[in-house]
């Protein structure tokens, strides 16, 4: 899933202070799963904005709405009539959401209510971590099912570097050295030989470095 984190309420208040009619829009996709942008969080943020408005002596009307997905025009269309009553939107979907809304409703001001973090998963309840860098050419099978591009601080394909420290990364003791995990796993699997093979420079042309990406599947296009 795409994992996001709520922006500080003060920041949301500050960026929306010129508007009196706000619609907080959630998303039932990834951000609901990571407890940051679903219906529940829409309600919490809306009430926080109302309270803040009152405290600052401003009349603020805050509406609430949660879409099936904000990354799909079909669902974004749903906002058409609702938006007539509002001046601005605070989207608490990932960074895709506010852009789809802004694209569909160019006259409406759209603000992001969350900071999109990464593509990852839940390690346990309340803890998420990054797993994928979206490089466009998956290589995890070479590395014991682990992605060094997303999970090594230096994206090394021929790690571990000399900064690996008792299983931790040189940048912080809170960060695992993923190469320590790769090496341990591969050696346990008896795959030392593969590990010693030189991995040549990677083509980043399929990654974001190749420019903004777009995918067309002809068989699905009408």
């Amino acid at each position, binding site marked *: 899933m795409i994992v996001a984190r709520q922006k500080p309420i003060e920041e949301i208040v500050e960026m929306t202070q010129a508007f009196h009619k706000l619609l907080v829009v959630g998303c039932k996709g990834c951000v609901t799963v990571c407890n940051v942008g679903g219906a529940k969080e829409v309600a919490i943020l809306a009430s926080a904005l109302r309270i803040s408005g009152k405290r600052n002596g401003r009349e603020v009307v805050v509406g609430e709405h949660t879409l099936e997905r904000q990354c799909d025009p079909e669902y974004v269309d749903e906002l058409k009539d609702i938006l007539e009553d509002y001046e601005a939107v605070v989207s608490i979907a990932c960074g895709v959401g506010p852009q789809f809304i802004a694209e569909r409703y160019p006259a409406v001001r759209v603000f992001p209510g969350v900071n999109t973090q990464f593509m990852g998963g839940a390690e346990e309840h309340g803890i998420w971590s990054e797993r994928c860098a979206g490089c466009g050419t998956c290589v995890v099978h070479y590395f014991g099912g682990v992605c060094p591009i997303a999970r090594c*601080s*230096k*994206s*090394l*394909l*021929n*790690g*571990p*570097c*000399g*900064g*690996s*420290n*008792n*299983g931790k990364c*040189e*940048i*912080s003791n809170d960060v695992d*050295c993923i190469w*320590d995990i790769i*090496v*341990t796993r591969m*050696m346990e699997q008896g795959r*030392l030989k593969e*590990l*010693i093979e*030189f*991995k*040549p*420079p990677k083509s*980043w042309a399929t990654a974001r470095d190749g420019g903004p990406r777009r995918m067309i599947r002809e068989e699905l296009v009408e």
Partner: protein
Amino acid sequence: MSEYKSGSNLEKVLRAGHFAFTGECGPPQGANVEHLREKAGHLKGCVDAVNVTDNQTAVVRMSSWAASLILLEEGLEPNFQMVCRDRNRLAIQSDILGAYSLGIRNMLCLSGDHQSFGNHPEAKNVFDIDSMQLIYTVKKMRDEGKFLNEQEVDVPPRLFVGAASNPFAEPFDFRVYRLAKKIAAGADFIQTQCIYNMDKFREFMRRAVDMGLHEKCHILAGVTPMKSVGMALYMAKQVPGMDVPDSLIKRLRGAGKGKVAEEGIKFALEQIETFKEMEGVAGVHLMAIEWEHKVPEIAERAGVLPRPSV
């Protein structure tokens, strides 16, 4: 003896079978050329080549190739360090050509400390290629006369290719294989991380020798004399991948007030003596960090002077 790969002094010294002795010099955090010349001046005649660090610990300094050229002007042979953190493959290959064209003959290939260590932690890093691939790149340009995209290099750069090895970082069992991998990728010489745990290093070298790695590549043992107990504690606790045994810290503490630095030097000298006899070790890389003026004394007492002229 076959033709030299680069013809650098370091290569000649190592190929002639002399026990090599290299030094290190960090470029200034500014354009203080005089200070750089002064620091480098201490190393003159004491070492076979001088490593010129590349924004080490991710702190902005004068570029390593520029500082290398200043050392060349001073009559010292630079070992130009390059990290993968700050350059993509275009900049890497063009800097290799530029450095070679201006007289640089040794190059040490490194991944580079992560920028979160340094004085611009907000920076975006590059890591387009890693240190292993950097070694491969320099070798490919030199031996095949080709860029990474297979296009021909119009006059290949003839550089003596160096790499680093940290025998002490985890996972220990894999370290010697990673060294082998660097040698297979094209490393002509290796400079190790600062060694303090002699037992562990001995074991590492035993494995390297068993694999015959010392016959494929010149391995220089890294030595950094401890200046103080504080430095030893810092190295032990703060520097990733560093192994400082308690016994050394105890020994430094026991030296008494005003005598710790001398004890640190004594330990370094004992290490150098051991390395001279250790199978597979082709020399010492002395990293006297901001202690360049002590290098002549250390070299003298280590009995490595005068440096051979090949």
